[in-house]
């Protein structure tokens, strides 16, 4: 027993020393992958409608929608510029500096796990955000953004369609 405990401790120390990733470096990419000349990440022009949807998560089962969004969040480079359609509850979030961010949620079939995708309005879009947990449907273009060295993904939208009550 003591031998096994000693081996385990040595193993943990060895793995910790070699397998813990270094601190995340500052992201050096463009402010927006959809507008490489953008001076700031909100600076993306509106897109023409109707969009030809390439990834329609609203018609997938909850298992598939969750897995698809997970893939998009883990491998965003493969989806940049794709037209995406999503349906789910609307969730606002206030950051520490008071800025309100807008998210659409996708739940797995059990409802205990959720993924969120931030929605960013295109330049000049005058979006009226509904109440929290209102069921919405959005169509937009998938983007990778840079906010002062912080990399994040977002869906660029012209509008929000409310499809249900909260």
């Amino acid at each position, binding site marked *: 027993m003591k031998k096994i405990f000693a081996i385990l401790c040595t193993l*943990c120390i060895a*793995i910790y020393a070699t397998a813990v990733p270094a601190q995340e470096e500052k992201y050096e990419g463009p402010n927006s992958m959809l507008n490489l000349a953008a001076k700031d990440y909100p600076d993306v022009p509106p897109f023409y409608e109707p969009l030809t949807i390439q990834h329609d998560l609203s018609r997938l089962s909850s*298992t598939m929608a969750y897995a698809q969004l*997970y893939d998009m969040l883990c491998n965003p480079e493969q989806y940049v510029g794709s037209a995406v359609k999503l349906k789910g509850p609307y969730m606002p979030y206030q950051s520490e500096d008071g800025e309100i961010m807008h998210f659409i949620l996708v739940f797995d079939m059990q409802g205990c796990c959720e993924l969120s995708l931030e929605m960013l309005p295109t330049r000049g879009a005058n979006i009226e955000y509904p109440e929290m947990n209102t069921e919405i449907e959005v169509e937009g273009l998938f983007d990778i953004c840079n906010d002062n060295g912080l990399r994040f993904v977002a869906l660029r939208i012209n509008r929000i369609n409310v499809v249900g009550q909260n």
Partner: protein
Amino acid sequence: MHEMLDTLAYYFTFPFVRNALIVGVLVSLCAALLGVVLVLRRLSFIGDGLSHVAFGAMAVATVMGLSNNMLLILPVTIICSIALMQRQRNKQVQGDAKIAMLSVGSLAAGYILFNRFPPKGGNVSGDVCTTLFGSTSILTLSQNEVWLSLILSIAVCLIYIVFYNIIFSLTFDEEFAASQGINTKAYNVFIATIIATVISLAMNLVGSLLISALLVFPVVSAMRVCKSFRGVVICSAVFSAVCAAGGIVISILLGTPVGATIVASDAIGFALFSLIGRLKGI
């Protein structure tokens, strides 16, 4: 029906669905092969115990912030598997009690660690739920995890084929195998290592709590219709692969948790095979 087939064809265009099917079939196949050894040696519960140890190791790996959790899960599970498979006569704590203690202790420790040191920006109850029940884990594998699972699964299958006769001897009569000059201690350690590897992989498929189903159901179902060891091995491997594939397909079509759907498919398959066995008079 036509609409369902169209939906299924559409779902197969997603790479993560194809990856899930390939990995799921291979892992369940390996689990069935090793399940034959465990069930016949009356060690069915060891799968449950080791999966809970793997959960505890995963919690430690998450707290440590490892780039790949398998770096800790695999060695810890292998060490515990070797310790549990050792036959210890006249000891104060016997085999089944040892398994029970390690199992619940690891589960409790893992859950406490998750709660005290939650991952940044994570959802603790969601992460724990997914790990325990495997609701979408198999559909959210990274490319590295897919390759690791493929390589390990193929290696386990090849090892089983190459060492089939020795595994057969060790399963039925270890003393006789030792008298024939087989190094039973070394081979038991080897088998324990493979079992731990398969259980670590199977966590992604059905979650920690349901792994026993992958080890037990295919074997007992095959034993309802087959009489020989070879027949049981082949039948349980095919049974497990078919139920895993069927379970994944049903879950993505109907939006049900993947792990539980696979286990439900296994249970239905067992009922069917039991009926066939009765009709055949076995």
